[in-house]
C-alpha cells in the first residue's frame, strides 16, 4: 500500500511502500509540485531505485526553475539507500 498526498506548507507526505509498481501513483502527485517543497518520509517504509528516480526528476525540474526540494524524516534504512546511490549529497536531507 502506497499513498502520496500534498498538504499544507508545500509539504508532500509519502506513506507505505514505494516500489516500481507504485511509481505512476507517486508521479501523479509529485508532478504537480511547482513551488519550493518539502517531502515528508515519516510514514514511508520502503523505496527502491524507481521511486528515487522519480524524486530525482522532481529535484531536477525544480532546480532548473531556481526552486528547492527538501526531504525530511527519512528512516535509517531509507537514508542508507540514498547513500548507496551517492544521492545523500545531491538531495537536501534533514
Amino acid at each position, binding site marked *: 500500500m502506497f499513498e502520496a498526498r500534498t498538504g499544507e506548507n508545500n509539504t508532500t507526505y509519502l506513506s507505505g511502500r514505494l516500489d516500481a509498481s507504485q511509481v505512476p501513483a507517486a508521479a501523479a502527485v509529485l508532478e504537480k509540485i511547482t513551488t519550493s517543497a518539502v517531502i515528508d518520509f515519516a510514514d514511508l517504509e520502503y523505496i527502491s531505485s524507481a521511486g528515487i528516480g522519480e524524486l530525482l526528476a522532481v529535484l531536477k525540474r525544480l532546480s532548473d526553475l531556481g526552486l528547492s526540494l527538501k526531504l525530511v524524516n527519512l528512516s535509517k534504512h531509507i537514508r542508507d539507500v540514498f547513500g*548507496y546511490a*551517492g544521492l545523500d549529497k545531491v538531495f537536501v536531507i534533514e
Partner: protein
Amino acid sequence: MAHHKQFPRNIAVLDQVFEFVNRYLSDQGISGEAAYSVDLAVEEIFTNLVKYNRGGNDIDIELECENAVLTVKLRDHDVDRFDITEVAAVDTTLPLSERKPGGLGLHMVRQAMDEIEYSYIDRTSTITMRKHLEK
C-alpha cells in the same frame, strides 16, 4: 531447505513477490537492514528482468538461509545472455545536472548485498545474490 516460487513477468505482481519474500524472511527471523536489502535486491533484479528480457516465461525466485548466509536466486528461462554484473558502475560523485536514473538499481543492489554472481546455462539466466547476516 530452499523456498521458491514462480511469478509472471509483470511489475504489477511486485506485491506478491514481496509477500513471498517477507514471509520467508519473517520465518527465518530476518528483519531490519538485512530484510530491506533483500527486498531491494529482489525488486531491482526482478524489474530489470521484466524490462530487458523478452521471454514469455515466468521468473523463478528462490530463497535459502544457511549458516547465517541468505542466498537469493532469480532464474529467467529461454532468454538471451545479459550479464548484469558487467553493467558499468554508476558514478555516484556526479552533480545533479549530470545524473541519470539508469543503472541506479543495479548499483544499489551491489551496495545492499554482499555478493552477486551471474550464470548463463541452456538459455537460462541465473542471478545469485548473498547477504551475510549478523549473528
